[in-house]
């Protein structure tokens, strides 16, 4: 899947990243898609893997809540809240995964309004 303004999941992630200060407001949409995890604020490359995992879990949990309650997304069939969080965490733990990679995983776990209306 491409990083595109045609998909609500990409837009929801872009604004969630800005709303949690992971990227600043001057980061353009196109630029955000190619950023890697270690470019985001939660990813401290010098911390132990134990601390990084905790940061990723906190952020993934926050995003899950935002997608479900503010965007009124629903989980894809057979996917639960802990599974969605865990899948996001696995991407977030890898320094070289991109924001676009993260949006792909989120797309696999959640059904946003544009998908529901198709």
């Amino acid at each position: 899947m491409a990083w595109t303004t045609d998909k609500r999941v990409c837009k929801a992630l872009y604004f969630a990243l800005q709303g949690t200060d992971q990227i600043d407001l001057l980061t353009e949409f196109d630029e955000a898609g190619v950023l890697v995890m270690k470019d985001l604020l939660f990813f401290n490359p010098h911390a132990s893997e134990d601390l990084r995992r905790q940061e990723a879990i906190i952020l993934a949990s926050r995003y899950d809540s935002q997608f479900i309650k503010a965007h009124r997304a629903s989980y894809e069939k057979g996917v639960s809240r802990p599974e969605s969080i865990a899948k996001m965490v696995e991407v977030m733990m890898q320094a070289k995964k991109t924001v676009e990679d993260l949006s792909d995983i989120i797309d696999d776990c959640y059904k946003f309004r544009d998908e529901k209306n198709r």
Partner: protein
Amino acid sequence: MRKKIIILFAIVLSFTNYTNAQENILDHLKTIFIGLSKNQSDSLLKEGVKSIFSNPDLYNDFFRQYVEKLKANDKGRYTFIRDLDLNFKSFQSDTLPVALGFNYNYSNSWVKNKVTEKSTLLQSYNLAFKGNVAFKKQFNPNDFLEYSLAFDNSFLWGGQVAELDEETSIKMEELQDTILARRARKDPSFLGLYDELAKYISVTDQFALGIKGKFSFEANQDFSKRQFVPGLLITAGAKGWNKNEALQYFNILDYPFALIRLITGTDKKFTIYGATFPSMLFGLDYVLPQDDTTRKELLGTLDAYSRLRFEIGFKTRVARIGKEVLHFSSDFRWYKELNADQVIKDNKLDRSTFFVAAIESNSGLFVSYTTGKLPFDKRNDQVYSLGFKYNLGNKND
């Protein structure tokens, strides 16, 4: 000899991207070397070889090209190598010569889920490798490798976004679309709309507590010292997401950076980031030394001992300068052997502290400072690193 020098430079320059610049430099070199004596050109060649092959950028270039070949030919090995997060670098300390080497960092996990109503419990098995390796091991100032398997339980409270009804949710998404449209046509009024957007998202502060059983194997880079370390770790973290609550203001480490962001115009007003609250780790390890000549010489035995550990990590944004975003990241670790023998204390082997701080840009430029020692390090060193990290990328995977 002159030909050798020119060939040497040609090889090195072939790893850069600037074809015109390469041709110009080679032309200049050919002109300069015509007038040199044999001794001069020998000396120049020796210095050239030394300078070129002690530069981590050369190895990063070789490695980047190797990974790109793997990407086309061997998907499985490419994914592993990419996730290994390997960076060549030079170690510079105040007591040791400059040493060339690399650091690596790999982690993977298998998740086991648990669902509860108000809080979330996540369980996972995690595998990780991490370390610094110098090509001349005696010059490695951060001589510590760790391999670990852990069972992690993470409890989360808060971080809950207030539920929007269908109509309000649609309005919020329409506002997001308006912001993107204005950004696309370079209309600067988009910035003002972010305040309006923030009103739609009401979120509580968030707290996390992790309890982890961990089994580690620690060693120096030639494995002449090694030990097994089962242990219990507790991690704690908080995020001041709610702008109306006081928690964010307790993030005191972010105050100097908030000031820099204000001065540089990165933030419109003095803003403490609730998202950059430092994370902490407390641990109790039971160390089982397998081979440690220093302890053996001092104690005569390799008895097991208990060790306390503490870690705090912090990362925040420093400034945006044009397209470059600068981040500050730091980590402090403390280890203390419990009930250590007097001879261990006298040799200052009962405790160690380690601190690293770095400023890094999105494009890969970084400057870092390290002080103290990790277990197995022989001395307290101050290590400075300056370099460029390559993002190998995985956009299409």
